[in-house]
């Protein structure tokens, strides 16, 4: 049986790890390599690392740091931040990264996915869409550059187009729920999941394992990512890297599955 994926998502800012709230006020939470070592010990399903400076500063991805992180990772790694070309994508994969995540470059030029996938394979091309709920109604706007630039694409249309162009995974990130730790935007997840037939990973809002369980219960095969949940502990958000044990994870998944599918 294929298990749902539970994925810590780490943000890199000024070479350190940070955690944001609604994409603002980055709080320093530690050293990336140290965090990866701890997540190795905890045998996490996958790791997602996003450099939130590269696109904003219009600089190349930090290959040296990526190489160091990838060498340390004993789990699959997706990296995002500053990737614009298939050359950059190939360089990053050659450093030992499994999946490359693109956001603004794909939104500006959705056909880029086809070009990159032809070389590295669709399974390694991830689109990350940062979305914010419109003030009125049940619609969402897509944003780039850490939530600063509003894009004009319609969400579902763009998702379908990206799938057709050959992306292998969609990460949908709720800006409104980022760092708030009060649960995922379940409506947004439904919209994204029903639009495509590729793996979907959701990010933004997890405050407890129950929040993750709710998503798994509804969608079964899905990636559930979280930042704050896996780097903070307690009501005062003390920095403490954590992740459910294999038993806790199995329990969580079993609670979410019908009896005959439990492991």
């Amino acid at each position, binding site marked *: 049986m*294929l*298990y749902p994926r539970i994925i810590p998502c780490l943000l890199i800012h000024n070479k350190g790890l940070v955690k944001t709230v609604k994409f603002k006020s980055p709080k320093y939470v530690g050293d990336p390599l140290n965090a990866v070592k701890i997540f190795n010990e905890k045998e996490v399903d996958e790791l997602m690392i996003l450099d939130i400076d590269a696109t904003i500063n219009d600089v190349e991805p930090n290959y040296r740091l990526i190489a160091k992180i990838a060498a*340390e990772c004993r789990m699959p790694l997706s990296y995002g931040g500053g990737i614009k070309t298939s050359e950059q994508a190939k360089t990053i*994969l050659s450093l030992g990264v499994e999946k490359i995540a693109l956001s603004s470059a794909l939104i500006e030029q959705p056909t880029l996915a086809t070009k990159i996938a032809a070389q*590295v*394979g669709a*399974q390694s091309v991830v689109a990350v869409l940062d979305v914010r709920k419109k003030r009125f109604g049940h619609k969402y706007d897509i944003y780039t550059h850490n939530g600063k630039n509003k894009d004009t694409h319609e969400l579902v249309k763009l998702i379908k187009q990206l799938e057709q162009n050959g992306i292998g995974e969609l990460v949908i990130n709720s800006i409104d729920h980022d760092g708030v730790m009060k649960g995922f935007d379940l409506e947004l997840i439904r919209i994204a999941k029903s639009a495509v*037939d*590729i*793996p979907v990973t959701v990010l933004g809002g997890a405050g407890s394992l129950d929040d993750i369980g709710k998503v798994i219960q509804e969608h079964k095969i899905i990636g559930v990512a979280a930042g704050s949940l896996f780097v903070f502990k307690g009501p005062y958000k003390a920095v403490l890297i954590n992740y459910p044990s294999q038993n806790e994870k199995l329990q969580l998944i079993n609670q979410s599955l019908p009896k005959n599918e439990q492991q």
Partner: protein
Amino acid sequence: MITIVDYGLGNIKAFANIYKNLNIPYTIANTANELATANKIILPGVGAFDYAMLSLNRSGMREQLDELVLEKKIPVLGICVGMQMMALSSEEGTLPGLGWMNATVKKLRTNGDAGHTPLPHMGWNTVKQTKRNILFDSLEQNAKFYFLHTYYFSCNEDDTIATSIYADQFTSIINHDNVYGIQCHPEKSHQNGIALLKNFEEL
């Protein structure tokens, strides 16, 4: 000595790190000369089938590799697309494969039931051992491994030593004489993957 074939694709460093941590000597081959002395070969792979074949054909190592595997019968372990390349052909591309195995590579089927079996097949899945093999020493039955693929290795049952289930059951690990292949990524499968890579070295 483990020799990891570096033809520009696949996670060379991840294998190197695992063998380094196990204190197992390894070398990374970029040329036919560096490959020549191998007594165990790892053929990694991440990417599209044609691009992988093209890269290997252009690497200058193809003939040496064929000779080592087919004539000298050096054990070789293909990983993901590295395994798929060992087949005759793939539905993903038009280039011929290495043809070390009587097999073809086909696209996984999806159920098409509202995203319950999306493609690629991505994540941790159980691997059921269908034959005894040294590769499985110290591994539990139904151990979990990380998968990331859309195509699978379609071969005869004799060569299949483990299977996994997505929309359908498919072959996840193969062995025929000195040729071994694994669809999942042992280099990214924590302790289970490390155990399998260690077993390959101890063949």
